[in-house]
C-alpha cells in the first residue's frame, strides 16, 4: 500500500475514436456511384414519374419500389437552400469557408446535399445556378465531385 508523497498533476492526451466503415450501397446507389466514377450524375425514376437524385430504392411519398429506369441529370442545378460554414473542420469537403447546400439538379425532382465553393456568403442565394467541379481522378464516391461552384462565378 502506498500513499502519494506529492500532489500529482493531471495527465491529458489526444484521443481519437475512429470507425473505418465500408458499407454496401445496394443496387440503386451502385448506379449512382458508378456514374460518378464516369463523371455522370444518375437519378432514378419513381413509378409516379418523379426523378430522385441521389436515387433511392423506394419513393418516400408512396413507399413503392422505384422503377428500373435510371436517368442522367444535371450536371448543373439550382440551390434550394444553403448554410454557411465559416470555420471548416478537418475532413469537411473544403478547407476554406464554404456552403452546404441542397442542390436540385436539372431533370431531378429532389435535391442532393453537397458543398458549394462560393468564397463569400453574400454571393449565395436560393435559386442560384451551380455546376459540379470534378476531381482529376474519380473513384466512385460522393467526393468525386469536389464541390459545386456558382455558374456566374466568372
Amino acid at each position, binding site marked *: *500500500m*502506498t*500513499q*502519494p508523497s506529492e500532489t*500529482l*498533476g*493531471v*495527465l*491529458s*492526451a*489526444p*484521443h*481519437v*475514436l*475512429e*470507425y*473505418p*466503415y*465500408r*458499407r*454496401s*450501397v445496394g443496387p440503386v446507389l*451502385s*448506379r449512382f*456511384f*458508378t456514374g*460518378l*466514377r*464516369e463523371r455522370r450524375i444518375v437519378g432514378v425514376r419513381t413509378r409516379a414519374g418523379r426523378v430522385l437524385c441521389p436515387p433511392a430504392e423506394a419513393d418516400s411519398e408512396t413507399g413503392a419500389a422505384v422503377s428500373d429506369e435510371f436517368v442522367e441529370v444535371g450536371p448543373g442545378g439550382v440551390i434550394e437552400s444553403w448554410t454557411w460554414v465559416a470555420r471548416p473542420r*478537418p*475532413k469537411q469537403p473544403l478547407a476554406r469557408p464554404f456552403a452546404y447546400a441542397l442542390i436540385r439538379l436539372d431533370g431531378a425532382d429532389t435535391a442532393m446535399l453537397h458543398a458549394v465553393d462560393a468564397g463569400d456568403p453574400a454571393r449565395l442565394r436560393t435559386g442560384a445556378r451551380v455546376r459540379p467541379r470534378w476531381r482529376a481522378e*474519380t473513384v*466512385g*464516391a*460522393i467526393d468525386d465531385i469536389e464541390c459545386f461552384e456558382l455558374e456566374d462565378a466568372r
Partner: protein
Amino acid sequence: MSEAAPPVKTIKTPMRLEFQYTAGVATSRFLRGIAQGKILGQRCPSCGKVYVPPRGSCPRCAVATEQEVECSDKGTVVTFAIVRVPSESLDVPLPFACVHVLLDGADVPFFSVVQECPLEQVRIGMRVQAVWVPKEELAPTLQSIKWFRPIDEPDVPFEKLQEHL
C-alpha cells in the same frame, strides 16, 4: 475510366472523433504508476472495495476514494470473448481473447487481452499475469501492459468470483 471497370458496390464511410482526453487526478496517478510498472487502485472508505483503474470515487457509496492501494499484476479471468474481426487499433494477431481480469487485491475487473495461450484453454477462473513492455519502454499508458498470459496456478472457483463480475 475504363469500360471494363466493375460497378461500385461499396463506399467508405469513416467516422472520426478527435478528443483531448483529460484523465483526472485519480486516473493520472494510476497512469503514472503504470509508467513505473505498478498497478495502483483506490479503496472506498465506506464499503472497502478497491477500484482499478481508480476514478476518484466509489459509484456505490458516492464518496471520494483517496486511499491508494497497489494491486498485483496477477489475477483471475472473470469473463472473456473471442475476437475474430480485425481492428486497425488493436495490434494483436487474430483470433485473440479479450478478458476481464480480477487483479489480486482489486474488487472490479480490469480489461485486457490474453496471449501465449491456445484460445480453447481460455476459461473463467484461469490465473493470468500481466506481460509488460521492456522497462525502458514503460510509459503512462495502458499500452505498457502488452497482454496477460496464463500462469501455473490452480483455477479459482466461480463462487469466489461471482461478486466481481
